[in-house]
């Protein structure tokens, strides 16, 4: 390809209101970001424990995942952690996904309506020596059942119930302000059309209206108020006042046709609802609070109390998509005070062209001679492009080329992204102590906007970007920039923010498993995002293949509990081993866990909180709190990381907040807890202290648990 070089017109640059930065910035990215640690020792890449799992099935001690129950001829299996929550007492609640798939003989579509089983729950805890043990909550399946299905033909009897009608699978979970865990939604499996009592028909997955609460104090599940809409794959987030906001989900996954409400057909539930935590009831939020969003929409509570939709989620309904899915490309913000959504931006734009962007665009636009293009594009680094059109027009002028829009949008990673995580990076106070900026890291997943098909591209992207929300003058200003790319494209990777502010990604696959289950290869290579260099680096290899329904959560000591894996059966038939073809064995769910120890775990110079407690210390917003440590003089960060509750890559409450150090002496630092409940919603957090070592590495302590108290409310007062 011959490149026709054109001079950049000054007007082009001025049009974007900024001047290009020096080319030196471009060269900086080529060095990589290794910060001097390039070997494969645990000190550099961390290490995984051996996998471990519950030792029994019923009363039978076994190392197998499943055993055959002679009386029924069915497989009984250990649950996998398709959903995983970090409880206020340091234990972990988890529950299964797709329970019963082991008993599918021929085809999951035909049989799972009757073979499905309500998912089991477990509580995992570790002794002081690290030995795991398990407890079965009561009731073990959380005790819900769908009162009635939503038949395609109202009044028809052509529905075959017989499988699970109150499964936790596909519920979202949230930690309430008092530490209880609420599971919202879930699945009623049945066959439609089908025949009652017979294993024949076509699977339907109907979202439940149920919400149920797990109380860690007595390991029991109870029902709370039900939603007004059945939701499968909804998302819930705590609001600043500790109420819980729910969006999206679909009522019927396979056949979302509702004769009673045609406008609702063919799309996800657009109505949002709010759970009044004081009353235990749900209420609809009205017309302005309606919004079409993807399933398991990636939402976050912003530090101004609004809820951000970050243009990511899951998208495979109905028949692969919603007719209105074009709207999912728009970043939006919901104001609970006015109960109204507003559009913020087309995801990815305004686009800040940095050196990573210039590098990646140059490779995409001309892989045979990217250096030449990179030199040209380096002159644009520092500019912000408000839309794809402005970026494409400028690239065309600079390069003298007809620039392919799809190539540009693919590089930017613009629009809605599926099967990825959206990680809120630590909130930091500005010079005035205000929290006015939030940043979100998104890496991997499926770029769906550029192909107009869904679930999107079959091959996952390696693109990684940071979206920034600036809250200035009452505005919600959005911008996006690229970081270094993942070392490989990854579908369904679980992200975990570590207390050194880096982000790890675990598990996932190299193909979209939902498109063609069993044809993906699991990714056991973990990666770490360095917030200083903004690059991804390969870390330790995990032991187990974990693709769909994998999970990972931060532990109190700074290690990471990695679990889950409940794949769809091979080709939606039965579990078939295609490993001989180089593909995944697709051998069913994996009930095991493994623990990842990041490099800082192997350091001998981690700071220590000497007044750490085993039970949470209650803290009120605005108060000061003293942390004892012998390394007080070196402590330069105190970070509160909210206990994680994750499923399907979603934890809308995921949050890390730097709290300001207001005083220190030789053996303690004192911090002030932020005043704003939108910055620090009530709930349970891990408090880490850290210092910056040579080379700029952040070395965190083990944490001590704290509980941010909710403002007192009564049901009548709301």
């Amino acid at each position, binding site marked *: 390809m011959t490149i026709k070089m054109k001079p950049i017109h000054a007007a082009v640059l001025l049009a974007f209101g900024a001047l290009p930065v020096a080319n030196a910035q471009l060269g900086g990215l080529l060095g990589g970001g290794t910060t001097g640690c390039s070997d494969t020792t645990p000190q550099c890449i961390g290490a995984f424990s051996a996998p471990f799992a519950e030792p029994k099935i019923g009363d039978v001690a076994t190392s197998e995942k499943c055993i055959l129950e002679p009386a029924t001829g069915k497989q009984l299996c250990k649950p996998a952690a398709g959903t995983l929550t970090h409880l206020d007492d340091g234990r972990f609640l988890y529950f299964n996904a797709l329970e019963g798939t082991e008993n599918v003989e021929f085809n999951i579509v035909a049989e799972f309506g009757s073979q499905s089983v309500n998912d089991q729950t477990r509580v995992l805890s570790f002794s002081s020596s690290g030995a795991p043990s398990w407890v079965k909550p009561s009731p073990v399946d959380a005790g819900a059942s769908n009162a009635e299905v939503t038949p395609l033909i109202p009044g028809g009897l052509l529905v075959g119930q017989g499988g699970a009608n109150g499964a936790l699978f596909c519920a979202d979970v949230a930690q309430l302000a008092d530490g209880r865990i609420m599971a919202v939604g879930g699945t009623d499996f049945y066959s439609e059309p089908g025949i009652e009592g017979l294993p024949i028909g076509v699977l339907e997955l109907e979202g439940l209206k149920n919400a149920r609460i797990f109380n860690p104090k007595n390991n029991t599940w109870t029902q709370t108020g039900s939603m007004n809409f059945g939701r499968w794959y909804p998302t819930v987030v705590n609001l600043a006042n500790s109420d819980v906001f729910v969006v999206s989900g679909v009522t019927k996954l396979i056949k979302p046709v509702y004769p009673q409400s045609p406008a609702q057909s063919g799309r996800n539930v657009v109505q949002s609802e709010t759970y009044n935590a004081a009353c235990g009831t749900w209420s609809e939020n009205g017309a302005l609070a*309606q919004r079409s969003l993807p399933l398991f929409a990636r939402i976050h509570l912003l530090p101004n109390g609004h809820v951000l939709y970050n243009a990511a989620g899951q998208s495979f309904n109905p028949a692969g998509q919603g007719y209105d899915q074009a709207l999912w490309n728009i970043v939006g913000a919901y104001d609970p005070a006015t109960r109204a959504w507003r559009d913020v931006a087309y995801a990815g734009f305004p686009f800040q062209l940095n050196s990573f962007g210039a590098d990646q665009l140059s490779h995409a636009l001309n892989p045979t001679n990217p250096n030449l293009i990179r030199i040209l594009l380096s002159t644009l680094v520092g500019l912000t492009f408000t839309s794809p059109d402005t970026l494409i027009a400028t690239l065309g002028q600079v390069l003298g080329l007809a620039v392919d829009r799809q190539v540009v949008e693919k590089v930017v990673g613009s629009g809605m992204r599926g099967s990825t995580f959206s990680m809120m990076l630590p909130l930091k106070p500005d010079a005035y102590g205000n929290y006015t900026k939030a940043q979100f890291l998104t890496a991997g997943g499926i770029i769906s906007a550029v192909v107009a098909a869904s679930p999107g591209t079959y091959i996952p992207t390696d693109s990684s970007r940071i979206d920034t929300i600036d809250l200035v003058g009452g505005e919600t200003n959005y911008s996006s920039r690229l970081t270094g790319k993942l070392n490989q494209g990854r579908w369904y990777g679980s992200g975990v923010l570590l207390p050194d502010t880096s982000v790890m990604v675990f598990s996932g696959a190299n193909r979209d498993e939902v498109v063609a289950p069993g044809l993906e290869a699991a990714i056991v290579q973990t990666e770490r995002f360095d917030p200083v260099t903004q690059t991804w680096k390969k870390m330790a290899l995990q032991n187990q293949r974990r693709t769909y329904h994998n999970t990972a959560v931060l532990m109190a000591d700074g290690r990471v509990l990695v679990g889950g894996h409940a794949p769809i059966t091979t080709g939606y038939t039965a579990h078939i081993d295609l490993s001989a073809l180089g593909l995944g064995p697709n051998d069913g769910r994996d009930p095991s866990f493994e623990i990842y120890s990041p490099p800082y775990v192997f350091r001998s110079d981690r700071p220590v909180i000497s007044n750490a407690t085993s039970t949470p210390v209650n803290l009120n917003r605005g108060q000061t709190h003293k942390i004892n440590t012998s390394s007080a003089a070196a402590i330069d960060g105190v970070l509160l990381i909210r206990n994680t509750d994750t499923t399907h890559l979603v934890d809308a409450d995921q949050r890390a907040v730097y709290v300001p150090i207001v005083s220190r002496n030789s053996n303690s630092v004192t911090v002030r807890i932020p005043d704003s409940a939108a910055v620090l919603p009530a709930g349970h957090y891990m408090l880490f202290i850290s210092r910056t070592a040579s080379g700029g590495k952040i070395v965190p302590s083990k944490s001590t648990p704290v509980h941010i108290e909710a403002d007192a409310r009564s049901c009548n007062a709301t």
Partner: protein
Amino acid sequence: MQRDINMLSSVRKGGPLVRSACFFSALLLVGPAFGHGGGHGEKNEDIVAVLDKLPAALQSVKVELHKTLASQLVIENKTDKLLEILDADGAPFLRIGPDKVQANLAAAAWYRTYTETGIPIPAAAKEKNAAPKWSAVSKTPAWGWFDLRLRSEDIRVPHGVADARRTATVGQWKIPVHFDGKPTALTGVFRYMPRPSGRFEARLTGGGEISPGISVQILPGPVPGFFVTNTSRETLTVFGRANEPLVRIGPEGVYANVKSPTWQQSGQAEVSYEPMLADAKAAPQWVLRSPSPRFSWIDVRAAYPQREPPAAVVKRGARAEVQRWTIPMQHGQTELKVTGATDWIPVSK
């Protein structure tokens, strides 16, 4: 309402799990997927069995035909009369109603139709003229089965139809039944409904910066959308398909004309059990939709109205512009317009 019809259509063709299963099968089997009808024994996913209107004698019986794993008939007979389903030799193999379902366990058809692929047939059931052996198989008068007469494997699609990729009836099917002892039949046709040969993509032709402070972006999707930002001091009015006011975007936020038919199909209209009656000629009824000067909606004007582009375009097999469109707007006293085109992109490109 057109979208609802489309949805029902897609339901009949199976949901995502079913489609994905078919995709998987295609990967493994790598056969001649479509075009001229599959050879013997091959599924032809482009041919769908469709149920005719029921004969008068069967009006009291509920009959559904679904394309799931294969074409599946589902019948509910809540009358006090017996419905017998006859096999290819004219012998009954299913009795549905009055209060249960009985199967003739001596009939091979019972085993062949129980699941999509059938189940093993006992030797005794393979014998012709075997004595019926009726056994209750359901306590309710409803049954679903995968009748082999609904299979499309041997249906031939005329070359002219396949080459034109047009929807057409390519065969008929008939399942004789006895209702209350009287002969009648379930009948239907096989419709050739070729899968899309490509996809459509909308683009702006006049650029997205249409006036200072006003920008427009295309949102890709099955029905494309627009994202409009107006940071100027004057309100921008966007007009709908009948040139009726659609939305106003400006410093005071976004107001929608809820009487606009275009608004009702925008993906942003309030979902209500008492939907607003749209009327393009009615006086606008403005309702606040957003406090910000940005708004997105889906707009069928940017979508191609047919499933396939003209045959000549498909035949060329290259990306082609198939439609031009305009979205009229008014900014203060200035008339503006957004112009664009919709391209067809073949599957393989």
